[in-house]
């Protein structure tokens, strides 16, 4: 999984550089988020702007991140969902669970 990590003020941004998240790389995404939280990040934003496709295991990895962040009282937000990705959240009603922003910029200024 290619991803870039960047700290901006109090937020840690993980920008996913893959166009696709599926059972082949969702385990890496899960580990990456977990390590970031274990490293002390208190406000994690996942930028999904480059991701054109996500499957159920990818949603699972993000849910794992969300639950872990909540346990550690860290913020956990998603940004830049492309139409196909957004539809996966809507079908499973997970858009009501996650804190979702149209773009990274809006997530950072929230």
């Amino acid at each position, binding site marked *: 999984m290619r991803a870039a990590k960047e700290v901006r003020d109090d937020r840690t941004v993980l920008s996913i550089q893959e166009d696709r998240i*599926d059972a082949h790389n969702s385990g890496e995404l899960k580990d990456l988020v977990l390590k970031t939280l274990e490293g002390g990040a208190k406000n994690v934003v996942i930028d999904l702007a480059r991701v054109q496709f996500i499957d159920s295991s990818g949603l699972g990895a993000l*849910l794992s991140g969300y639950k872990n962040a909540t346990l550690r009282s860290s913020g956990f937000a998603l940004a830049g969902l492309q139409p196909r990705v957004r539809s*996966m959240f809507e079908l499973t009603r997970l858009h009501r669970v996650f804190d979702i922003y149209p773009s990274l910029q809006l997530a950072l200024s929230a």
Partner: protein
Amino acid sequence: MGWAVIEMCETFVNLDIVVPSQTRYLRLVGAIAEQLAKELDVQEDTRDTLAFHLNLALTEAVANAIQYSSAAKSTDSVRICFSVDDAYLSVRVFDHGGGFDLAALPSPEFDELRERGRGIFFIRSVMDSVQYHKTDSGNVLEMRKKIA
């Protein structure tokens, strides 16, 4: 005054693919499914959605075939057959695992934030019918989608 000279509008498809039982092939399988959707004779405005839905259904089905077969034989491969009969596209994904009872599978509880258990739900959401049965050549998940 331009005029269309000859136009062919036959719906077709009959494609068999075999890939190793490894998740790295999910991307290729999904891309082939999208390509195939683009070759089908469906309305322009629904083509991209059909492509996405086939990609998703195949990704979920093949991921399951890989995951629930791999205990049985790690050098396994996954066979996928696409075909069109009448106005339906039918896709069959074979696995060589222990199988399961599709009809007995409960719908996911959306309020429980479990990390798994949404694959079949997605397949059911985007396809028109889904069946699973055991055959002599392995178990087969058959997904059908109306395309005309």
